[in-house]
């Protein structure tokens, strides 16, 4: 079992690389073969990844959320899976390259640095923690997807404005669709992050004696949540749309990356497990 997990750990970045390659060939070179194989390739990669995460959970007796590199693998999976769902539901098949490059990078880093831990802190075996972390990961994955769609929107926007009618103009979905996809992803991410914060606020004070509402990670998360919330309210109440709202989604995602990385690494608090 351990050998199999080791082999899949090496295989997964390769599978993501192959999938990204197929999506890139389909987008930039209009390759018929790539167009045919890209979605099945992604489906197989997602299935293998799901089996890998399940196998790790069973073999090491804890969900794969105990180290930053395990979490990276879960993020890679959730982005790839969410993208496949978007592709299926909206029939938007031309944006895969830009989205799937994220799971490829996350999984590559995870595969290189991941460790096989069997002994983890008891606090990391809590079910509430599972719900808290999974909803947070899914939420941030949705934000990542919204940021990519926001980026694609801005790219197409500038291409149309500046009369550049090349590959980007030809192959990307229209601006309204890209905006719709980004907003849907922001809304899904906002709901999931709300759940993560809510579950966290129930579980954290119980699990940690030194719990503080001014913990940097908690404050950072609430700022991210507030930014996305403001964006959604602005869209609904003030009627913001187009470029402005897409810039806001990218700014909010940049802040969330900052919150997840810099704050997590440099500001030590109770809310840090590894």
């Amino acid at each position, binding site marked *: 079992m351990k050998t199999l997990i080791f082999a899949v750990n090496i295989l997964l970045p390769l599978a993501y690389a192959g999938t990204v390659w197929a999506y890139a060939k389909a987008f930039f070179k209009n390759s018929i073969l790539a167009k045919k194989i890209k979605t099945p390739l992604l489906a197989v990669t997602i299935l293998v990844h799901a089996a890998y995460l399940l196998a790790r959970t069973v073999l090491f007796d804890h969900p794969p959320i105990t180290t930053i590199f395990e979490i990276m693998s879960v993020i890679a999976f959730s982005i790839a899976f969410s993208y496949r769902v978007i592709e299926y539901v909206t029939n938007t098949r031309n944006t895969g390259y830009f989205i799937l490059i994220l799971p490829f990078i996350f999984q590559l880093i995870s595969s290189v640095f991941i460790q096989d831990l069997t002994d983890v802190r008891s606090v990391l075996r809590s079910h509430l923690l599972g719900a808290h972390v999974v909803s947070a990961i899914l939420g941030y994955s949705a934000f990542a997807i919204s940021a990519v769609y926001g980026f694609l929107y801005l790219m197409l926007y500038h291409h*149309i404005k500046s*009369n550049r009618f090349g590959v980007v*103009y030809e192959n990307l979905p229209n601006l*309204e669709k890209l905006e*719709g996809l980004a907003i849907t992803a922001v809304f899904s991410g906002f709901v999931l992050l709300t759940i993560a914060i809510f579950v966290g606020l129930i579980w954290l004070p119980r699990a940690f004696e030194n719990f503080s509402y001014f913990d940097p990670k908690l404050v950072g998360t609430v700022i991210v949540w507030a930014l996305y919330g403001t964006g959604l309210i602005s869209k609904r109440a003030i009627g913001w*749309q187009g470029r402005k709202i897409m810039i806001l989604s990218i700014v909010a995602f940049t802040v969330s990356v900052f919150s997840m990385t810099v704050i997590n690494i440099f500001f030590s608090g109770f809310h840090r497990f590894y």
Partner: protein
Amino acid sequence: MELCLIGINHRTALVDVREKLWFSDEELRSVLSVLKAKYFSECFIISTCNRTELYGIGDNVPIEDVIRYLLEFKSVSNPETRGALYVLRNCRAASHLFKLASGTDSMIVGDIQILNQVKTHYNLALESQTTGTYAAKLVQTAFHVGKRTRFETSICEGAVSVSYAAVELSNKIFSNLAEKSALLIGAGETGEITAKNLVARGVGRLTIANRTRSKADELAGSIGGASINFEDLHAHLKDVDIVISSVNSPTYIITADQVRRTMRERSNAPLLIVDIGVPRNIDPEVNKLDNVFVHTMDSLSRIVDQNMNRRRTEIPAVNAIIFEELSSLVHWFESLQVNPTISDLREMFESVRADEVKKHINRFAKDDRELVEIVTKRIVNKLLHLPTTNLKNGTGSGDSIDERHSRIDAIRTLFGLHKPADNGADRSASEKTSHE
């Protein structure tokens, strides 16, 4: 048996020469009957504004006589027309039809509207009873080429006219044109065509503003939509998503300040403005505003040029499809030739066997005679098994069409078999096919 193509098209002649060889439906009916009676076993003619092409199948076709007949029928005597005619045979002729079907021979690369015309003219020949198995297979393969080209390549994709480029642009900004409304300012030709295309693509609402109100009313009536006074167009800007402007005006008819106010009123919802007026109708500063996209004739022409270039890059992929379909057509043609040869060979062997058995059967005991029949039939079958298989499938790698025809010819000569009776597959024709 050979396939001949005699034609004239936009590449070989200007319209004043081409039009002299254009055939009406009535003319086609009478010409096809004569051609079939005198020169071909099967024939059909495609006659459109860009080309007239005669596809005929027959033995030892006197091409010059056919050309002379066609020119006489249309009362054309000038040598210029004769010079513009081209003649292609067999594979080249079939390949030309496939290029036509794929849109690579069209005036605008990728335009496959010609397929409908091929269908119409083939049906006309069918009604006139001048077609048969070969023409049917040829046209059927041409349609298959057209279908594969559409689905397997992007040679037909992308707008190739300025008016369609404007529609393509609106499709790059908006998801559903049915939910959008458009405003046409002026009633110029390009603007009118663009508006018509938008309506054809299902734009939700069209409003027309023209300095002469009656003209706007008339246009609104003909393409569907409402008309407004020219002076009221600024008040309507907030209600529309697409503006097409094509008026003659020495000053800008829409300024940046007006659009800025409009954008506030429409909650900054995207606005596409297509300015096809000369001099420009829209202040270029408008394009600097958020969510406003201004495009002129120059940018639309750029879209058209890029689409044309992209279509051209698909030609090698289309040629690969044509080659595959041509090979399959040649294979089909060969099979028509192989089957009669196998049948003749078996018949000949069976006749020798039956004669010999008949001659000597009395030498065998009555009980053994049935066995003799069985054994001799088995010997003949075993002797013919390998040659039959090789004739059908070839002998393996490097088995060219020429080699297969030589083999069929050798078998027919060695065993003294008659040439296939009027099945359209004699050796000379196949030889020519293979060489083209």
